């Protein structure tokens, strides 16, 4: 999920403040599919991600593209407005109650020596790795991926060599949204979903991405692991409720000492 944010920022240079909200929408989509067709959330990934790709494309092409040249606060406001609409549309459609998905393997776990690991968590992690690998190879090996990276490196240069920058931006936003959808489907098995979940995950994604380095995909993965581990350790030794203080402390440290993030390139 942080991967999606990193992709979007890295290329389009718009900070997506509706990220967590978009993920919440994906989570609801997964629960709805499960309720209607008993579709396993890990299979629901495909249709949901495809839909999100289209939605993300439309969002960027229709609403965000005119804002590319506007100042940051203007883009920020735009996405805040989108986020407000998303959260409350969910509230209208699904109501304020928490929802979840129950599958039979949810309570099962693997035993690794003395460690017990939930099956659902293992699947979620595997899914994240697969998504990351796919995305990575897309950017590395395909022509479109190269073109997108060219836009990120030099907006003007990309236009000069005849790339359709707006189309590529929209494509990128679509890809980022698809990542969010994948994350949302995986997360449905781990936490209950409520409309108000969005802002927390938006902030979390920001912390992860910045610690790792905005615009760097490897950094987003590293940041995710780092934050996850540090929160778990902090939760173990100090009060569990104080654990996110460590994430934000880490964020402040990283911003001050290495604002481009651990693996980020100099801006």
């Amino acid at each position, binding site marked *: 999920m942080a991967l999606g944010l990193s992709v979007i920022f890295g290329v389009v240079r718009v900070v997506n403040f509706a990220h967590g909200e978009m993920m919440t929408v994906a989570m609801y989509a997964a629960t709805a599919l499960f309720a209607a067709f008993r579709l396993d959330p890990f299979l629901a990934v495909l249709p949901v991600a495809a839909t999100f790709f289209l939605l993300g494309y439309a969002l960027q092409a229709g609403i965000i593209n005119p804002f590319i040249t*506007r100042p*940051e606060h*203007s883009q920020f406001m735009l996405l805040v407005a989108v986020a*407000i609409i998303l959260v409350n549309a969910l509230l*209208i459609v699904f109501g304020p109650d928490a929802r979840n998905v129950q599958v039979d393997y949810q309570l099962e776990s693997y035993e690794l020596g003395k460690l017990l690991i939930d099956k659902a968590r293992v699947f979620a992690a595997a899914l994240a790795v697969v998504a990351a690998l796919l995305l990575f190879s897309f950017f590395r090996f395909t022509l479109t991926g190269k073109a997108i990276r060219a836009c990120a490196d030099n907006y003007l240069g990309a236009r000069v060599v005849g790339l359709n920058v707006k189309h590529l931006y929209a494509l990128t936003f679509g890809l980022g949204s698809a990542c969010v959808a994948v994350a949302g489907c995986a997360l449905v098995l781990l936490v209950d979903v409520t409309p108000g979940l969005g802002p927390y995950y938006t902030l979390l994604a920001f*912390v992860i991405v910045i610690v790792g380095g905005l615009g760097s995909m490897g950094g987003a993965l590293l940041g995710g692991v780092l934050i996850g581990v540090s929160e778990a350790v902090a939760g173990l030794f100090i009060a569990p*409720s104080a654990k996110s203080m460590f994430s934000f402390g880490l964020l402040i440290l990283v911003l001050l000492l290495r*604002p481009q993030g651990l693996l980020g390139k100099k801006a």
Partner: protein
Amino acid sequence: MIRAQIGLAALFLLLIIFPLFAGAYALSVATLILYFAYTGQAWNVMMGFAGQLSLGHSLYVGVGAYAAGAIFFHYGIGPWAGLWVAILLCVALGMAIGFLAFRFGISGVYFALLTIAFAEFTRIGFDHLDWVGGPGGMFLRVAQRDTWDIANFRGPPLMYYYVILALVSFAFVLCHFLLKSKAGYYWQAIRENEEAAQALGINTFRWKVYAVALSSAMTAVAGVFFAFYYNNLFPEQIFNISRSIEIILGPIIGGLGTLFGPILGAAVLTLLSEGITELIAALGWEIPGVKQVFYGVVLLAVVMFLPHGIWPALARRLKLNA
């Protein structure tokens, strides 16, 4: 220019006599508008004048509110003393954040995220601070609401209305003179082009820290007002990022860097939100969330079609150049 001054004087007079014919509900809405107008003006000093985007202004509201509130709660010392503690604390915080950020050359999105990080950090910290009640909140004793106890800042809603009106007027006059002063020109130069400003010999680092300090001091006062107006403080609410967003919506919608923008924006947004509530109640569509969807759509429309805010467009229409 004359027309603008007459208009301003008329508006001010109207606001002074407003409580004479307003009911309790209208008065509370007006107080809310003025509160957001004031915090918006404070934020505008930093973003609108000096161009430094802060998304963590709830930090100063919260610290200010908690400082004055805790002093009153634990020692019974009224807000007139607590106010100074609140201001000093917030200025120290703001200058520390500004000093760290600007020393390391952090700007733009990164600076905005840093301010969020500090606000969130403080929020979770206050959740674990038992001295101020932790997540359970802190409640100030509600005194009888019919006498004006100015020393302890307890009184009827009318008193709070006049206090916040005075604050807005003060901030307005302050900003008016600031914009015309050396500091104002320095800030605007930094906003427009920081490198050029530096080349002209402006110590951009120092002036940016000053802008943060002034903005946080003004916001601290708003925090004290908040504490004594609402009487209850929860870290979860007061430091929440949506509080920071509420503060900045007004000036952005109204017009960034203008004098009237924050006031107009606060009025438009608050009236819009209250109006939608009324409208939905009248139509009988009382589903949770409908109101906020409307609000979001209007926000989206304003950002898309009036990128510089409402005030500049309105001022052109009215042929005012204030």
